[in-house]
């Protein structure tokens, strides 16, 4: 089966330190201060990344709207997500509210982003 895999290649070597066409860059580092109130912990990260987060969520909504035209499903999910938030445990609920507030993304979108794993395990 391995021999028949058209994408299979021989084991790579000497690829480290990363460079070349399989390397796309490093990532920025942030400190999350757990001594701050949960609502404020993610402010630095989200000030820098709000545009990127909104772009991802908009694309997911666009995808949903392609399957269910008219945006009714996407709107319904958003409303349900806001309801779900109130049942999430401390301090996660407050952290999610803080992220939505700082980023300007809708609360429903940020809840959905945080429970994506549970949705996608089928």
């Amino acid at each position: 089966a391995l021999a028949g895999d058209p994408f299979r290649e021989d084991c790579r070597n000497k690829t480290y330190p990363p460079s070349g066409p399989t390397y796309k860059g490093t990532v920025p580092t942030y400190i999350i201060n757990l001594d701050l109130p949960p609502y404020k912990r993610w402010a630095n990260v989200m000030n820098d990344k709000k545009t990127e987060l909104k772009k991802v969520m908009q694309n997911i909504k666009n995808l949903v709207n392609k399957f269910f035209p008219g945006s009714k499903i996407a709107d319904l999910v958003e409303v349900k997500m806001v309801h779900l938030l109130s049942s999430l445990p401390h301090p996660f609920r407050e952290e999610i509210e803080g992220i939505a507030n700082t980023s300007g993304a809708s609360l429903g979108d940020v809840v959905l982003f945080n429970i994506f794993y549970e949705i996608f395990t089928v």
Partner: protein
Amino acid sequence: CTSIVAEDKTGKLYHARNLDFGLFLGWDIKNSSWTITQLLKPLVVALAFQRNNKTIFKSTNFAGYIGMLSGVRPGAFTLTMNERFSIDGGYLGILEWILGRRDGMWMGFLTRAVLENSTSYEEAKEKLAKTRLLAPAYFILGGNKPGQGCVITRSRAATLDIWDLDIKQGTWFLVETNYDRWKPPLFLDNRRDPAKQCLNQIKQENLSLATIYDVLSTKPVLNKLTVYTTLMAVDGGHTETYLRECPEPCCPW
């Protein structure tokens, strides 16, 4: 995803992963890539969680996501999570939660709680194995002593299997992708055997973060869904994260 926990000849533990995400979430024909995979790359951040100006744990996250998918508690343990697909999946857990059954834990919140509160490999292992979940998962855990490494296969309610490192029996590495270890992977998605073959080729005496990066750079372990590669060593909580790209020809998953 592909996660690797491995021990070198001196007993030092290494832990690394490729985070793959975005399957079927839109295909960008122009760039020959998954849309969401590409959009997630600018969201990847390295985080240091501090209390009293001291780093308690580190993680690699998507900005806006407060759970943990890859993290290290310096000097104590390393942890990654791989997605486990099941008919009895997380959507049922969400439904139960909405209907009022709330004794399960959201996956990302559990890994976050473990990294934040557990102070040893054993404590982390117990919490990951015994806490009821909303969705199935694979937890890959590494410790700070020789032999401390395992893959915990979880259904929502129970631990189905704990697969430990066993140096005496020649098991110096564990590779977990997205399939139960006692079952063959889907024939269209076999990343497990190429990763194992490359690790066997490297041999235990040559194991390092650099050689593990080689494994995670080999197609199809590296594929069109790969967002980032994280390398971790528990000593000092060392982590390195790199965004990835898979140039053609490259497996779409």
